[in-house]
């Protein structure tokens, strides 16, 4: 039995070390996932620990479970608004985009590695999808708030493009291993059956799970386990009937996450942790599996493919897929740059090995180098590239110390406690005068372990705990009230929302007269907001702009789906000369540095 204890000990120790190392690396700003991969490699064959591990089957099993959990968690966290804003662009990127990327990389690999075109395409397919967890983590890690359409597109894309890459990979593997099988109509047909089946089973499974969770009474700690088991059942059940389990489990997560249910807070917190563990486990295992010394023989080709993906295949696919949508060139550039690759390519590359494709090690090695390069190059520069391209929006309060308390869904309220933090707006106001939103009630204030009497409370102190009941949509209002405002209070006008502010209620005619702009008669008596609404896409977001004569009008603030304030950009033509603008930024940085 000593062998098993040995394995458990090493496994648990690796996870523990990973979590602690992760904490340090996020302070240094290094991409976290790279650390896990590195630790796995250090423990592996070529590292000092020298653990010999080459069980691709086990890796495939663990990888499947981990990916299902990660996708389920991604679904839970994706809100209806994200889908509304980004559905079509994300869908385009996840379908056509993945195919295009695979084909471009396929051609490159065929040429560089001297493979058959089909084997080349397999290389392309394994590295074609972006990684949900990596994108989520890096987008949220450094307090970079992006324009909503960009972040929603990236998030949704990363959630839904794995099934496409998996389908392509498996199709290529089947074609390579089954002699006599040919490319024909059955391929697109099976694609639609798999995706459609996954969608249907995911919706059905998601609603069944919702119903069960709301129906039965069990110990609170069991709800997340129930959800997890349900998710894995939906995943494997779909796979068994030839539908895509990856689509199904993501969709089931979406259904559960966007409907009110019991134990919402416990389930989402548990699955956040669970997804994390899956991510860590997957990277560790993949790191263990890799034998870096075998990379050397083709290292230049592998690096060239990685580079080709970053600078050629991804930008090309993004540019083509986003043509029908409203994205500025800077947004497209950023979306291209955030084509982060994570564990999925390495996992996918283990499929040919398991399936016995001849010379399969090469797929694994290429995928590994691509992921390493992507995490190192793109992962490291994500926040600075957002700033450089001027896409970062003013940050919302950073440390929100809020803990949710579960209420039955019929209550239609959220209960939560907040820790009053330094410099928060609530400190300056007497307790009875706190500007509370509608239908909100403070239940108790706890100071140093004692529940305070309202009459003698006076003002809130730092580190008081406030427990309050409010409608779900007002949680953010209370967050702002009790949290430290963002440290770097950046001026709004630096953020490309226009130089001046106009109320959306202003008559459009008056606004035009004010600046000598032309205004057509029917527009004169309408409000600025109405005119903008007519010319914007249906799901508009902050930062969207319309051109009017020589100026541009920018959506600046939105409340409950209505535009409230509009920015006026006086010199949009500067915007349109990107090279000049970048040049000016570079020179001013250099000047500042030389001073």
């Amino acid at each position, binding site marked *: 039995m000593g062998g098993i204890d040995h394995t458990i000990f090493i496994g648990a120790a690796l996870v523990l070390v990973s979590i602690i190392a992760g904490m340090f690396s996020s302070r240094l700003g290094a991409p976290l996932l790279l650390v896990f991969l590195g630790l796995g490699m250090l423990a592996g064959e070529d590292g000092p620990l020298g653990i010999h591990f080459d069980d691709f089957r086990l890796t495939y099993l663990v990888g499947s479970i981990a990916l299902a959990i990660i996708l389920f968690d991604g679904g839970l966290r994706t809100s209806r608004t994200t889908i509304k804003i980004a559905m079509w662009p994300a869908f385009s990127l996840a379908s056509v985009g993945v195919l295009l990327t695979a084909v471009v990389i396929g051609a490159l690999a065929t040429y560089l590695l001297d493979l058959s075109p089909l084997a080349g395409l397999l290389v392309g397919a394994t590295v074609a999808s972006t990684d949900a967890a990596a994108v989520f983590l890096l987008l949220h890690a450094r307090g970079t708030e992006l324009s909503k359409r960009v972040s929603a597109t990236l998030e949704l894309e990363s959630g839904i493009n794995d099934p496409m890459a998996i389908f392509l990979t498996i199709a290529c593997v089947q074609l390579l291993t089954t002699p006599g099988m040919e490319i024909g109509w059955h391929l697109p047909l099976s694609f639609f059956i798999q995706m459609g089946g996954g969608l249907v089973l995911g919706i059905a499974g998601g609603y069944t799970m919702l119903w069960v969770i709301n129906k039965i009474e069990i110990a609170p700690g069991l709800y997340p386990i129930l959800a997890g088991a349900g998710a894995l059942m939906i995943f494997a059940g779909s796979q068994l009937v030839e539908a895509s389990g990856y689509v199904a489990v993501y969709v089931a997560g979406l259904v559960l996450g966007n409907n009110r249910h019991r134990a919402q807070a416990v389930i989402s917190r548990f699955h956040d942790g669970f997804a994390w563990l899956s991510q860590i486990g997957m990277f560790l295992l993949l790191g263990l599996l890799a034998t870096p010394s075998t990379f050397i023989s083709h290292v230049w080709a592998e690096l060239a493919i990685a580079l080709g993906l970053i600078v050629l295949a991804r930008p090309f696919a993004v540019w083509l897929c986003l043509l029908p949508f409203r994205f500025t060139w800077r947004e497209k550039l950023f979306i291209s740059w955030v084509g982060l690759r994570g564990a999925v390519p390495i996992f996918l590359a283990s499929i040919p090995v398991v399936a016995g494709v001849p010379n399969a090690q090469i797929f694994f090695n290429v995928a590994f180098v691509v992921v390493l390069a992507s995490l190192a190059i793109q992962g490291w520069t994500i926040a600075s590239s957002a700033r450089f391209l001027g896409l970062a929006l003013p940050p919302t309060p950073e440390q929100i110390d809020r803990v949710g308390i579960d209420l039955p869904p019929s209550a239609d309220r959220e209960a939560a406690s907040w820790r009053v933090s330094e410099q928060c707006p609530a400190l300056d106001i007497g307790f009875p005068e706190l500007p509370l939103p509608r239908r909100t009630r403070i239940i108790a204030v706890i100071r140093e372990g004692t529940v305070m009497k309202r009459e003698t409370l006076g003002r809130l102190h730092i580190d008081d705990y406030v427990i309050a009941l409010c409608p779900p949509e007002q949680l953010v209002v209370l967050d702002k009230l009790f949290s430290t405002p963002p440290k770097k*209070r950046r*001026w*709004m*006008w*630096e953020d490309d929302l226009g*130089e*001046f*502010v*106009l*109320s959306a209620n*202003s008559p459009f005619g*008056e*606004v035009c*007269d*004010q*600046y*000598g702009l032309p205004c057509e008669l029917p527009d004169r008596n309408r409000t600025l907001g109405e005119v903008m609404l007519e010319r914007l896409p249906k799901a508009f977001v902050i930062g969207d702009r319309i051109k009017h004569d*020589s*100026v541009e009008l920018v959506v600046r603030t939105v409340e409950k789906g209505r535009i409230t*304030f*509009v920015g006026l950009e*006086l*010199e949009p033509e500067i915007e349109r000369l990107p090279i000049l603008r970048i040049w000016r930024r570079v020179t001013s940085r250099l000047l500042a540095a030389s001073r």
Partner: protein
Amino acid sequence: MDISDLLTPERVIANLHATSKKQALQELARRAAELTGESERAVFDVLLERERLGTTGVGGGIAIPHGRLAGLSSMFGLFARLERPVEFESIDERPVDLIFLLLAPATAGADHLKALARVSRLLRDRGICEKLRGTDKREALFALLADSAASHAA
């Protein structure tokens, strides 16, 4: 468009006293009326009309009230450094202590927009704002505003 086309040393106020947004605008209107020969009431109304569409407090303690005045013959700028910051309904809720008033003739058209953009770009520079806050001499303030114009013209 240079700042020196809008401003002269006479149009710089080193220590304006005001306790509210309204008072600051009234005081600026009075000075602008004296310097242009227009009626104080007309200037004040034009500024108020613009504020009704949305605040001109652009954040960072800066305000750029502006408007078009029928009788004016050329673009007119007036810079004021406030003794004490006043509440201005700014977008970042910060009180304002540097104000650049800009009045344009009704016929100005594109020049009005260019001048506004120029002023807004100038006061976007945090370094310049710090220097402006640290000086209470009219000539020095004027020099800061006009000189910076040269380096920003590119």
